[in-house]
C-alpha cells in the first residue's frame, strides 16, 4: 500500500481569533497551530494502521509555507514515513487541490486520504477537487475504511443511518470521526521525526479563482439584564427602547 495523507495546519481550538489588513487576513500572530484533527486522528492514523497490517509506506503532503513544518513533523512523530511540503500559501481550495494532484499524479498511490474538513475554514472541497483533477473515484465522510486486494470498503454516516460502499483503488477518500483513534506520539516517534525526510517541492502555476473579501467574528453576546419580576414596566420599557422589538 502506498498511501498519501494530506495534512494541514489549523489554529488550536482555544485560540483567540482576530483578523488583520482590514479584516481580509487571519492574524496568525501568537496562534498555536495543530494538525487538523480530521487529518491527524482519523486519516493519518488509519493510514498507519493499514500500513502496519498490509505493508507499504505513508507519505504526508501539505501545501504551506515553512511555518507549517512543526505540524508536519508532528505527523512524522505520529508515524508517517516521510513528508512533502509544496512551498506555497494555500490560498484557496482549487489552488491547493491542483498542487496536491500535480504532485500525486505519477507517484502510484493506492489511496489518497483527506480529513473531511479543516476545523478552521470547513471547506470540505480539496479532496473532491483533487479526485476530480486526478480522475479518480472519491468517497467523502467515511467513518470506516477496510482494504482488501484492489478495492476498499467504506462506511459513511448518512442522515438517520449508514451507507456501505466498495470502491476500486486507487481512490481518494475523506475521513470523519470513527475511522481511527487518536495516537499520542511516543518518545521514539518524536525523536525520529527530525531525521525523517521532509521534502520541499516548488509549487506549480495554478489559477486562483476566489478572493476573500472580509472576515468577521460572531457578534459578542450582550450582557444579560436582570429585571425584577415585580417590575414589568421596566421590562416593557427596555424591550421597546433598547431591544426595539416592541
Amino acid at each position, binding site marked *: 500500500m502506498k498511501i498519501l495523507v494530506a495534512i494541514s495546519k489549523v489554529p488550536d481550538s482555544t485560540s483567540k481569533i482576530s483578523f488583520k489588513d482590514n479584516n481580509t487576513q487571519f492574524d496568525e500572530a501568537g496562534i498555536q497551530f495543530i494538525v487538523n484533527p480530521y487529518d491527524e486522528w482519523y486519516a493519518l492514523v488509519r493510514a498507519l494502521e493499514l500500513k502496519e497490517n498490509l505493508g507499504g509506506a505513508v507519505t504526508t503532503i501539505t501545501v504551506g509555507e515553512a511555518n507549517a513544518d512543526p505540524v508536519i513533523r508532528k505527523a512524522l*512523530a505520529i508515524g508517517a514515513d516521510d513528508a512533502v511540503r509544496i512551498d506555497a500559501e494555500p490560498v484557496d481550495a482549487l489552488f491547493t487541490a491542483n498542487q496536491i494532484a500535480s504532485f500525486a499524479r505519477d507517484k502510484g498511490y493506492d489511496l489518497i486520504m483527506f480529513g473531511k474538513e479543516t476545523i478552521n475554514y470547513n471547506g470540505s472541497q480539496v479532496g473532491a477537487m483533487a479526485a476530480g483533477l486526478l480522475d479518480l473515484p472519491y468517497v467523502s465522510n467515511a467513518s470506516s475504511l477496510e482494504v482488501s486486494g484492489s478495492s476498499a470498503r467504506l462506511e459513511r454516516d448518512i442522515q438517520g443511518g449508514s451507507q456501505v460502499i466498495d470502491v476500486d483503488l486507487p481512490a481518494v477518500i475523506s475521513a470523519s470521526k470513527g475511522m481511527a483513534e487518536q495516537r499520542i506520539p511516543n*518518545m521514539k516517534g518524536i525523536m525520529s521525526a527530525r531525521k525523517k525526510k521532509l521534502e520541499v517541492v516548488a509549487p506549480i502555476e495554478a489559477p486562483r479563482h476566489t478572493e476573500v473579501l472580509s472576515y468577521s467574528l460572531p457578534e459578542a453576546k450582550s450582557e444579560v439584564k436582570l429585571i425584577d419580576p415585580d417590575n414589568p414596566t421596566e421590562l416593557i420599557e427596555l424591550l421597546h427602547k433598547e431591544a426595539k422589538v416592541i
Partner: protein
Amino acid sequence: MIKEKKEALKGGEFLIRETDPNDIFTPEEFDEEQQMIAETCETFLQQEVLTRLDEIDSMQKGLMPSLIEKVGELGVLGVSIPEEYGGFNKNFVTSMLTAERLGAGYSFSVAVSAHAGIGTLPILYYGTEEQKSKYIPKLASGEYKGAYCLTEPGSGSDANSGKTKATLNADGSKYILNGQKMWITNGGFADVFTVFAKIDEDENLSAFIVDASSEGITLNPEEKKMGIKGSSTCQIFFNNVEVPVENLLGQRNEGFKIALNILNIGRIKLAGAVIGGAKGTLTEAIRYANERNQFGRPISKYGAIRQKIAKMSYKTFACESAVYRASQNIEDRIASFEVEGMSKSEAVLKGIEAYAIECAMLKVHGSEVLDYVADESVQIFGGMGYSAESSVERAYRDSRINRIFEGTNEINRMLTVDMMLKKAMKGTLDLMGPAQAVAGELMAIPDFGSAPESEFEKLHGYIKNFKKAILMIAGSAVQKLMMELAKEQEILMAVADMLIETYVAESVLLRVEKRTSLEGETEDNKLKLEMARAYIFDAGSTINQLGNEALISFAEGDELRMMTMGLKRFTKMDALNIKLVRRNIAQRMIDENKYVF
C-alpha cells in the same frame, strides 16, 4: 545580543552575585522536540487521566499500574534515562518539563513522579552495572513499578533514625531485613522497593534493592488520606526478608547520602510538577469566573475576583521562572562535570547537589504557590468549590501533601539557611565580605546614586537591596547568636523566606528582561513585566515584615534602630498602583479564558 556565558552561578551564590539575563534559561526557549514531548504528556493526561479521576480516586483495582504502563509505553518514564537502559537520554531541563506537564494529573502525578523519581533513580544513580541492567529497563518501560521506603512510624523528618535492621546471614550470602516502613507511595503495587536500613549496629543507613515478591513482606491496607486518594500509600512490614548481598545499593553506610541526594532531585521535580498543577487549576478558576453570573454579571468582572486571578497568575509565572532558571544551572553543571570526566550518574548527582539550596527553596515555594492557587480557586468557585463534584475541591485536597513530603517545608527552610551558612563557613560562598560591606553601608550616609535608566535597572536595584536586607539580618544574627542560631528556628524560617522571595523575584525579573531584550516590548512582554513588578512589590513587603520580626527578636537599642532603618531603606520601593497592575494581569487571563503563559 546573547553574550558568552560567564562562569555559572554557583548554588546559593545568587545572594551575593548578579546574574546576566542572557545566562538564564526561560521556558519560552523550549525547542520543537521538547514541545512535542510536553504535548504528549498533556494529551496523555487529557485522554487517560483527567477523564477518569473518580475511578482513579476510588482506587479501582489495577487502574493506576495500568496507567503507569501506558505512559511507559509512550517512553515518557525513560525521558532522562540513558539509551543503554531503554531510555531516551534527554537532558535535565527536558525531564523537568515532563514533570511539569504530568503534574496536572492529581493522584496520577504523585504515583508517576514517585515511580520515575524516588522509585527509579536510586538504582539508576547508585546501582552497579548488573543492578542497573536488571531493573532500569523495566522501570523505564513501566513494566516494573518502583517505590522508596525511607519513612518509619518513629522516623519521619529525622530520617536517619530508622530502626529497620539488616543482618548478614551465616554464610554471608544474604542480608536478613526486619522492620516497618510507613507512608510508602506506590507501596500497594510496586515490584521493586529501595529500602533504607541499618546493617548491624551501624550509625548510618544503607540502601537495598528489595523485590516486592520476597517472602516475609506484608502490607497493611491502603491508608485513608485527605487527598491524592488514588495514589497507593501503604505501611510495609519486613519480617526476616532475605535480600541477596548483591542487592546492597551503593556502599554500606552510604544510605543516608543516597536518600538525601535522591530527595534533592525529588524536590526540584516536585516544584516542576506543582507548576503543572497550578496552571491547570488556575485555568479552571478563570473559566468558572467567566461563566458564573452574580448580580447580573460574570464574577470575573469583580475586582475581588480579578485580584485573586492576578495573584495566582504571577505567583505561578514567577515560580516557573525560578524553577527553569535553576534547572538550567543544574543542567550546565552536569555538563561541565561530564567534561571533567565524571560518569553521567555521578555528574547528575553532583550537579544537583551543587544546587541543593535552590532545590529546597523551590520545593517550599512551589508547594505553597500550588496551595495558594488551590485555595483561592475554591474561593472563586464559592459553594461549588466546596462540592466534591468540582475539580477544584480535588485540587485543594491533593495539593496539601506537597508541603509535607520530600522533606516538610519547615525542614527545607532550615536546610536552606543551614546549607548557606555551611558554604560560608567552608569558604565556598563568601557571605562574610558582602555582609560586612552592608554593615558598613549602614553606618555611612545613604548613597542614593544616580536615578536608574530603565525600568529593569530600577527593579534590579530593588532586588539588590533585598539581598542587602538578608545579608544584614542573617549576618548580624549569626554574629550575635552564634551556635544558638540553630535553636532560633523562627529566625531561620524568616531568613529562608526572605531568601526564597528574593530568588524568585530575581528569577521572574531576569526572565522578563531576557524575553524583552530578544523580542522587544511585545504585548506579551509588557504583561510579563507587569507580573514581575507585581511579584517584586509583594516580595518587598514580605521581606520587610519578616525582617522586622526577625530583627526585633535578637537585636536591641541603637543597633536595632539602625538595622530597622536599614531594612526600611533596603525594602523601599517607588509607589506602585498594585491594584491597576493586578487588574491588567487579570484582564488578559479573563479575555483568553485561561492562564496564558
